């Protein structure tokens, strides 16, 4: 999963100093549950400060100022241990590039997709996503006992231009021809379950039998999920 947030949209103040001027970045590794718990504390906060510190070990210090009954606020501090990733490994974490996909299509309403996938999850471990350039998408599961397909149409296909300004080669494709990939249904369900707000734009790119790439755009945040196809 790759998520990008623009600092200006979230923070009143943002200061950082990376390793060096030409490499003004910091890569940290942490347990997401810790950060999620720390931020739960902040639900009714007056202010939240996040700072990278090094007490016993590198930590992300989340300091939350909460309202209290007295004149002085309550302060809750969470020290989340983090691993600082050395520069030589940064390439492992570069934003994955958009794959050379066969079909790109807008997703159906996520709520609908979520309820379909949740029901399918009870019947099968894997799901096939197939779509074509005619705005049609099918979600299919197949077991010994039953096969279920949900059809979506008129979804629309996003226009992509390649770097040299031309329409991508995917446009040469037969409109009706489906690109498909079989993926782990739990991963898809988790992705959908994580979406609490409807994105401004939601689409997926399918590389036949290789990978499904989901892009969800909100005003302030972009999320990309890469789910590899099962063998």
């Amino acid at each position, binding site marked *: 999963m790759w998520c990008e947030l623009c600092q200006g949209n979230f923070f009143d103040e943002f200061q950082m100093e990376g390793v060096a001027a030409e490499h003004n970045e910091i890569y940290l590794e942490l*347990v997401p549950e*810790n950060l999620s*718990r*720390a931020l739960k*504390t902040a639900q009714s906060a007056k202010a939240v400060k996040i700072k990278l510190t090094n*007490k*016993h*070990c590198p*930590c992300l210090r989340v300091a939350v100022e909460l309202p*209290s*009954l*007295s*004149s*002085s606020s*309550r*302060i*809750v*501090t*969470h*020290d*989340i*241990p983090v*691993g600082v990733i050395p520069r030589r490994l940064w390439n492992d974490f570069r934003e994955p590039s958009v794959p050379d996909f066969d079909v790109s299509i807008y997703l159906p309403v996520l709520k609908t997709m979520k309820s379909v996938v949740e029901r399918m999850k009870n019947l099968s471990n894997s799901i096939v996503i197939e779509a074509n350039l005619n705005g049609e998408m099918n979600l299919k599961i197949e077991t010994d006992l039953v096969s279920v397909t949900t059809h979506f149409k008129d979804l629309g296909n996003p226009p992509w231009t390649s770097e040299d300004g031309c329409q991508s080669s995917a446009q040469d494709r037969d409109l009706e021809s489906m690109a498909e990939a079989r993926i782990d249904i739990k991963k898809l369900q988790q992705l959908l379950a994580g979406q609490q707000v409807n994105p401004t734009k939601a689409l997926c790119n399918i590389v036949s039998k290789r990978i499904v790439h989901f892009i969800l755009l909100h005003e302030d945040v972009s999320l990309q999920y890469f789910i590899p196809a099962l063998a």
Partner: protein
Amino acid sequence: SRVAMKCVIGGAHLRVFGRAIHAIARISDEFWFDPIEKGLALRSVNSSRSAYAYVFFSSMFFQHYCWTAVSQPRQKEKQLSLPCKLIIKSVLPVFRCVNVLERNVEKCSIYTNINDHHITFKLFCKHGVIKTYNLMFQECDPLQAVFAKHMCPNILKVHSRLLADTMIHFPTSQEEVTLSVSPMKVCFKSYTEDNTDFSRTMLTEIQLSPDEFDYFQVGVDSEVTFCLKELRVKPIAFSMEDRVLEASFILATLCEVGEETAALRPAWRQTFHSFFFGAVSCKERDAVSHTFHSLATASDTEEDFVSCCRNTR
């Protein structure tokens, strides 16, 4: 065992009694049922002897309370108490759905049957239905918490709401918490030891201002560590006009001072560092909320605690 007791709990107080049982159940599987002349005491201690609960219902709490001591000819003095142990699991079903209890049960009578070691709980329900529970008890030595005499310079009195709001920031898996007090600051933080692996442990710290406490007296900067699980017990809620009920939950703390290794001995015998939480009835209903005041305070003995409450009201 030469004491007989019979009491009746009226409708509205059933809920309170039931809640007391549930609260004690969080400490241990068994509890001491100790009727005395002034009222009924319930006590329990957990297996590691690091938490102790005490609830006392004065005779005024009951619709009817009757206690008699019968002396045996061989005994020189009357044995004035009949401490007996009951298994919580046997009593809990009697007070299972505390909220429903009030609606369906008119009253509950409890009486001891000294001859064949039974305590009988009788629930008088609607439509003439009477549920009778005969529970066996074990006679045993009395249970009493021992508090360290020298420790009383710090007294904190706080509404339980504040504690609940504070504890919520710790993960449910957090076992022990350190409370650190100084005249200017109160701080609850995750307990750490020298060999804690900081690279894997998330640490949480909550700072409170003394202003948030109903009563705040810190004579000695102190740090105590205690088990969070017992603290998460909600104090009993009640609203009564007379002082007919008091309860205290006593939690042991780890000894920070000196070379004693707390791990070797049950912590609370040596330490009693000023910690117990109590729910005490108020004389008048609290103007703000009808529920309760909660009390975290230090005391030398239970007697002192009782008188301390009377004085600070």
